């Protein structure tokens, strides 16, 4: 049994790393990116500390609340993965492992170890680093206890994901999804309450994050210990039952469906005449260019990637708005948040591009075997991405601007939003066509899909960002300055667009293999 489990686990990691194993350089760059990620986290935390922006609050209390928030996020990840199927089955496993005589219990244990290892790599070092940097040289919490706490949260999170995945077999997909989202909401409740400035005292008596946090930090409260034991027993009992269930028929490949769903028709409430007939339905009377534009809109609406990207974008923006309250640092003015929204804008086309690589790249043969097909396809892609990126980021900007009431930088912020939208869409298209690897979650390629558009659009928007930093230019830009910035955006966009279209249209010979 152990040998089977180890073989399955080894194959899973090998398969997951995929093209990373092709060369030493790929592996080294993966490690370098990981180190760079740690560096960014360390620097941000260090900056937060030396800027003295932590409010008048004891270090003990500050670290305790930081830990509760981290544990809440870890537990919520499990519920979110559960809503997507819970079990990280790769396609080869669906074809060969799930059709073999390997028992569901062994397969489940393999995946549990796989998920725990992955979550450890991405959560433990960064979470520990944050606490160490915030509190050094004081030691408000024993690091070994903290490690044990995070490990317990990760194990509980992965078990929850699995149980929710298997619950599809017991309850059906819809009910399992509803339960998953309810649990995810419950897990992030401490964060939401803090954002909304609602007292969370009543949560402390039962919420798993608080219970885990208190017990692991040495609380001898018998009520808390009993509650924690109850939670763990409940989880283990259901998990054991799940291990004895043949759930193979209900397994979906969660890794690839994290950002998208199987295509479906528009839900009834979205069947507005304008949206479904004019914007989405392809009609014979549409010109080829319009058809390409509609094709991409239809794709991102029907496979759900638009809604997922929008959800992530909204969560990031709201998290950014709530960050001062959440981390109890001095709040910076709402108007500064507006600029940050412009900086989050590249996330939108990046996420859409990740989905494009998974679901659409293999359909390129259809346009590549048609005269001028690739060029029309690319221009449709640009306009579709640009429209949704600008539309949704402008809506969020507008909502926050209404809340802010004072808008001293509105001209510059809108210019920045426009520039970031255009440049990030162009960089996203560039990345998705040039980087031919399928981005799996937490892989180097998925990182690059987000990193390249973000960095690229920031670099190209530097002149506008510079203006945004300096008063009185930022709050009272002259007409001349606005004209120069507008011309700059127009010229760079046109040149970049033309170079990109020419380059990608002539590069139709994909290395697709035999």
């Amino acid at each position, binding site marked *: 049994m152990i040998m089977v489990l180890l073989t399955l686990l080894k194959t899973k990691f090998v398969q997951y790393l995929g093209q990373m194993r092709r060369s030493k350089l790929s592996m080294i760059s993966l490690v370098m990116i990981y180190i760079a990620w740690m560096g960014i986290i360390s620097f941000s935390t260090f900056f937060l500390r030396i800027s003295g922006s932590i409010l008048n609050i004891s270090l003990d209390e500050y670290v305790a609340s930081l830990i509760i928030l981290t544990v809440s996020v870890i537990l919520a990840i499990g519920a979110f993965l559960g809503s997507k199927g819970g079990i990280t089955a790769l396609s080869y496993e669906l074809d060969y492992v799930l059709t073999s005589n390997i028992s569901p219990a062994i397969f489940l244990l393999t995946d549990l170890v796989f998920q725990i290892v992955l979550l450890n790599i991405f959560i433990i070092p960064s979470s520990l680093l944050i606490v160490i940097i915030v509190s050094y040289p004081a030691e408000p919490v024993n690091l070994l206890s903290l490690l044990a706490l995070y490990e317990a949260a990760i194990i509980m999170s992965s078990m929850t994901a699995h149980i929710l995945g298997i619950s599809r077999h017991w309850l059906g997909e819809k009910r399992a999804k509803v339960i998953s989202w309810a649990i995810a909401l419950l897990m992030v409740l401490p964060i939401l309450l803090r954002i909304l400035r609602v007292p969370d005292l009543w949560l402390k008596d039962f919420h798993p994050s608080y219970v885990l946090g208190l017990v692991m930090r040495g609380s001898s409260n018998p009520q808390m210990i009993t509650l924690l034991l109850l939670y763990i027993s409940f989880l283990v009992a259901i998990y054991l039952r799940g291990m004895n269930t043949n759930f193979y028929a209900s397994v979906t490949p969660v890794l690839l469906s994290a950002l998208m769903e*199987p*295509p*479906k*028709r528009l839900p009834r409430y979205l069947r507005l005449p304008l949206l479904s007939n004019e914007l989405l*339905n*392809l*009609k*014979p*009377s*549409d*010109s*080829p260019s319009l*058809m*390409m534009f509609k*094709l991409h809109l*239809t*794709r991102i609406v*029907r*496979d759900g990637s638009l809604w997922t990207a929008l959800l992530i974008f909204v969560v990031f923006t709201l998290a950014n708005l709530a960050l001062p309250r959440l981390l109890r640092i001095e709040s910076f003015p709402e108007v500064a948040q507006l600029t940050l929204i412009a900086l989050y804008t590249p996330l939108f086309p990046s996420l859409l591009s990740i989905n494009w690589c998974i*679901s*659409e790249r*293999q*359909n390129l*043969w*259809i*346009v*590549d*075997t*048609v*005269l001028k*097909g690739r060029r*029309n396809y690319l221009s449709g892609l640009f306009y579709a991405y640009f429209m949704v990126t600008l539309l949704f980021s402008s809506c969020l900007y507008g909502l926050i601007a209404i809340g802010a009431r004072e808008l001293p930088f509105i001209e510059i912020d809108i210019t920045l939003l426009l520039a970031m939208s255009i440049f990030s869409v162009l960089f996203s298209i560039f990345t998705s066509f040039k980087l031919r690897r399928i981005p799996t979650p937490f892989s180097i390629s998925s990182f690059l899909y987000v990193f390249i558009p973000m960095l690229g659009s920031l670099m190209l928007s530097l002149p506008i960002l510079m203006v945004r930093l300096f008063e009185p230019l930022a709050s009272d830009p002259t007409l001349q300055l606005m004209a120069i910035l507008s011309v700059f955006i127009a010229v760079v966009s046109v040149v970049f667009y033309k170079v990109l279209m020419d380059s990608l249209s002539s590069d*139709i*010979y*994909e*290395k*697709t*293999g*035999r």
Partner: protein
Amino acid sequence: MKKLLIEVKDLWKAYNGKSAVSGLSLNVSAGEIHGLIGLNGAGKTTTIKCIVGLLRADSGEIRVAGRDVYIDASYKSIIGYLPENPSLPEYLTLREFLIFVARIKGLSGSRADSEVWNKLALFELEEISDQLIYELSRGMKQRLAIAAAIINDPDILILDEPFSGLDPEAQRVTKRVMRETANKGGAVLISTHILDAAERFCNRATIVHKGRTLIEGAIDELKSQVGLGPNASLEEAFIKIISS
């Protein structure tokens, strides 16, 4: 002499240094249904991808309807192509997909509309025309992909393993379409390793092995060239050619 519609001369293509096609040559004339026959990995699909412009050959010359495919891409408006494993946009309905292909292939709006209904009827897909492609079985997707390949009634059809996954009725329709294309002066190039089908259906064939052309000619000529009579099967001839 009949007009050559597809000419491939001394084609070479390698993937990461590993040779897939090594000096392959092929000629398909007007009125011909030409089989590209070989074992798995013989280089059939690579050759076809080079012809339709999905891969750039390392060297060699490819002409379609007299036009060099690397200089003049206008030949794409007269070809219909079916890949070995067609990947389709699963988020579209059948009708939307055919409208999309018809329009990007240059058909006018009204002609696109009528051709879409014709092809849906030809492959008996009318009743499910508003279903998403995602909901179709593999065989149905293959029918749809063939319908898309012939949506503009192309002069040249290039089909990679066209009968894979097709039921007998759809095979019959596909064969009829291929015959009609050849009869009206066009050409059909199909790759297959199903020798029975090739023997019954193709006028001429090219046998390829390890990326090279071993022999090319009319089916009966192929048999006689290896010393077999007309009653021998193409399979016997093929085995003899490959093993020699």
